[in-house]
């Protein structure tokens, strides 16, 4: 299965980025083979609005079945849900640790936005 993880850096040892829309990178991992690819999301860091939506649509483009992140706002949630991507919330840790927690079934699935959106 393919999973995307929000990351502050470009390796599996980087820390999970708890923000979704303004995460620095997405690490897309194939859980069977362990192969991963890093996708830059930094153009979203300075987005005036709609960072969550854009990030959501970027993740949709990664062809993953699940996303592991810290927080998801309502608009990003709507996009990810519409694309059928399941969202799992992880505590602080590295990308590799978060992935392991996911494999061990320790992460809760997020069934609604867990943070408020920005007004605009």
């Amino acid at each position, binding site marked *: 299965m393919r999973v995307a993880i929000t990351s502050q850096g470009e390796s599996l040892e980087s820390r999970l980025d708890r923000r979704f829309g303004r995460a620095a990178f997405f690490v897309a991992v194939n859980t069977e083979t362990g192969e991963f690819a890093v996708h830059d999301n930094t153009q979203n860091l300075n987005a005036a609005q709609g960072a969550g*939506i*854009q990030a959501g649509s970027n993740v949709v483009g990664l062809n993953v079945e699940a996303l592991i992140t810290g927080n998801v706002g309502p608009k990003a949630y709507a996009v990810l849900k*519409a694309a059928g991507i399941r969202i799992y919330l992880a505590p602080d840790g590295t990308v590799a640790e978060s992935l392991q927690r996911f494999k061990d079934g320790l992460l809760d699935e997020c069934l609604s936005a867990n943070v408020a959106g920005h*007004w605009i």
Partner: protein
Amino acid sequence: MKIAVASGKGGTGKTTVAVNLSLFLVDADLKVTYADCDVEEPDGHLFLKPEITLKHRSAVLVPQVNPEACNLCGECGAFCRYSAIVVLKEEVMTFPELCHSCGGCAYVCSVQAITEVDRYIGSVDRGSAGKLNFISGCLDIGQAMGPPLIKAVLRNITDDGITIVDAPPGTSCPAMTAVGDCDYLLLVAEPTPFGRHDLELMLQAVGSLPMPRGVVLNRVSGPDTAIEKLCSRYGVPILSRIPEDRRVAEAYSKGLTAWKAVPGYKALFADLWSKIEPVAGRYTA
């Protein structure tokens, strides 16, 4: 002739100045419209108590996608700078509250799958308070797109006399939209360190606008050389100093205008107008 009354933040007495200036001009037998563009929190009506004769709803155009016609090509989503429309694998999602109504997505859709539909954002009220014409915009609760509604208010100014535009506080899009095509810019500030800071932000924000401008200091209780220095650095005159006066606050708490409650006000606004009028008149001409 349009005179904008603006301030770097709320609570400086901007509405006080706008309302009292309007009343002074009406009293001087001029044709005057008070236009409340502070659409997030219009409060001019609380003082003017106008009789509203015309109310209309104001809308902006947002995209609506016909899924039958859409081939999910992605063009609309790639065009939109505001992430208000995104193309997913099986559907196109829209976020009307983020849409700036540029029409671009409908334009780039090669199969005409997008129609632009009305989305109501607020209302514009028209009426009068005695001889004063009154227009006010009020954004619906939860709406964030002030500028289109402000433009709707400004479009409704049909009067050829003097319009006093009560602008939203601050230096962002709504404020700039309201003051943008006025003939004179009256900035209201308090002579406190915070007030001075907000005034400086405002002077910077309007720096590239062409119209003449002046400052009114409100609630003045002593000398303030720092704010004088700031104004002279920007080459903006201080036109008037409205003294701190308990009676103004008392009048407010009763919903009265300072104009009626405090005798000195008439002379104060007469003096202020005598400084604005020739400059604004020259700019218009």
